[in-house]
């Protein structure tokens, strides 16, 4: 028995379903999300505020409802992002590991099929992602980058809005785990 199995949930057991995905989905969806972030903002610069790899991490984590799996998903996607930047490897990895773990933990307590909650997941985890990254950069690397709070709030809302259709599209790729 783990600490989460013993904790109370707010959803009936029949809705606490665990979903699985085709192995290709695990690879292609994060890859497309990263490529989107690499390629699309070149033409539509305002879309650079979209953190699709983060939303994909959150989605896979909440659908699997397994915190270790969520943490691992976040870790791999974050490291892939790190490899394409000039920063140290592990910065996005650590942040997304924490996000994946938290998202999976939340999914054990709440009905993540709810649209309102999905919007909040998108908003909240984006803000948490940005704050965590900023805090880690300050504490581990000693950088003095500024955290633009108004920009972050607006971008969080944007990510929350985008999370709704994105999660619905990704819902078509899931199948119930046995």
């Amino acid at each position, binding site marked *: 028995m783990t600490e989460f199995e013993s904790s109370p949930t707010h959803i009936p057991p029949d809705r606490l379903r665990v979903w699985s995905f085709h192995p290709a989905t695990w690879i292609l969806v994060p890859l497309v999300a990263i490529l989107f972030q690499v*390629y699309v903002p070149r033409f539509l*610069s305002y879309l650079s505020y979209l*953190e699709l790899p983060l939303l994909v991490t959150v989605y896979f984590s909440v659908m699997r409802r397994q915190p270790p799996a969520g943490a691992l998903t976040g870790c791999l996607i974050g490291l892939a992002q790190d490899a394409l930047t000039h920063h140290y490897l592990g910065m996005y990895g650590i942040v997304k590991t924490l996000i994946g773990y938290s998202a999976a933990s939340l999914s054990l307590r709440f009905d993540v099929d709810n649209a309102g909650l999905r919007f909040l997941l998108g908003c909240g985890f984006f803000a948490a992602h940005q704050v965590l990254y900023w805090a880690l950069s300050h504490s581990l690397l000693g950088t003095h980058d500024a955290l633009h709070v108004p920009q972050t709030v607006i971008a969080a809302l944007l990510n929350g809005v985008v999370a709704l259709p994105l999660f619905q599209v990704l819902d078509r790729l899931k199948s119930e785990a046995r």
Partner: protein
Amino acid sequence: MDGLFSRYRNMSALLALLAGQLLLLAWQIKSDGDTRLIRVWAVTAVTPIVRGLEAVRVGTGGLAQRWFMAGTLETDNARLRRRTAELDIRNQLLAEQLQQAGRAQALLEFRSQLSSRSLPATILGNAPGVQSGVFFLDRGSPDGVKRGMAVVTGDGIAGQVVAVYPSASLIMLATSQGFAASVTSQKHRTHGLLKGDGNSCHVEGIRNEQALDEGEWFYTSGDDRIFPRGLRVGPVRSVRNGADGKEVEVRPAALDGDISEVLILLDAVHGQIPDLATPSQPDVQVLAPPPEDTHESAAAAAAAASPAPAGGSSATPQTDADRMKERYKRIVEGQNIQIGVTPYRAPDFNRQPAAAPSGAGTATAIQPPGTAQPGAPPTGSAPAGKAAPSAPKAEPKRTTSAQEQR
């Protein structure tokens, strides 16, 4: 122990992942660890896909255009509407092509003027991250690109190469956090350090008492040994006194619009910071000097031809004042009046002055006003001794001004 791990299985997994990544991070920081292999794999895996996407984008752009143009139109109204849409799209495509061609042309011209050896490059895409300000270029280590090289456009500095891979390289824009370049202002030669803050740039290290104007341009000073001296940076957008010196905001001119083509300076050569241009002169037409008055010029020519009085100036009158002085002198002499001798008799300055006794004075006085040929030199300005012999041959029947006076 097993019970502890099984009880806190989730937390253990999380801690293991975090610890692993923290160790990786610590190793990189401690030993300036070379994770190049992982990065090369990642970039090499992504770059072909991005290149393919670019090719698809260009291809489908043409297909979409053809699809729009081949649509069957049933009613005139619908046809006209679609036609308008087609033309709009076409217009946008053409405008984009024109803009791209213009940018390329401007970059080419700038490159030809640049004393540094440079390499043109195209931006492929962004590095991951929200507003990372880091871009992939289509040039890599085989092209001679090295980390730290300056990246410029025709409008000024754009950024700096921060990582190089075989198939691509990463540049950090001047507005990115972490970017720094040594700059100096054009007018007051105020030195400072340009830093990116994510959205724009600011210049640090300028004391409050140092002079700097809003709108004044900054140029690279070359002190950072990354950017050669003399490259444009951008104008000062705002400047105000602060606690630790002036707070100066600068918008890099190269990043004002969309950039897709840049130049990487392979072999940077320092240049000069241009001086401020002098204000352009207003468009004013200035006429040529007026022609000489014929009577005066005749007298002047006569005076020039006559031998100089003892102790007097033998030079030909050069100015109007000189000519007037000569005229009055001859008037006085012609009336046999001695100035300053009592009893004083006032000369009549309304009378014409007496001509010089020699024939030289007849040279120019015979030509009536208004008959001078355009382009011909003014008679009075002819050198003494040259105009005198030639003029009588031209108009032998005319009388001299002295004879007319008599």
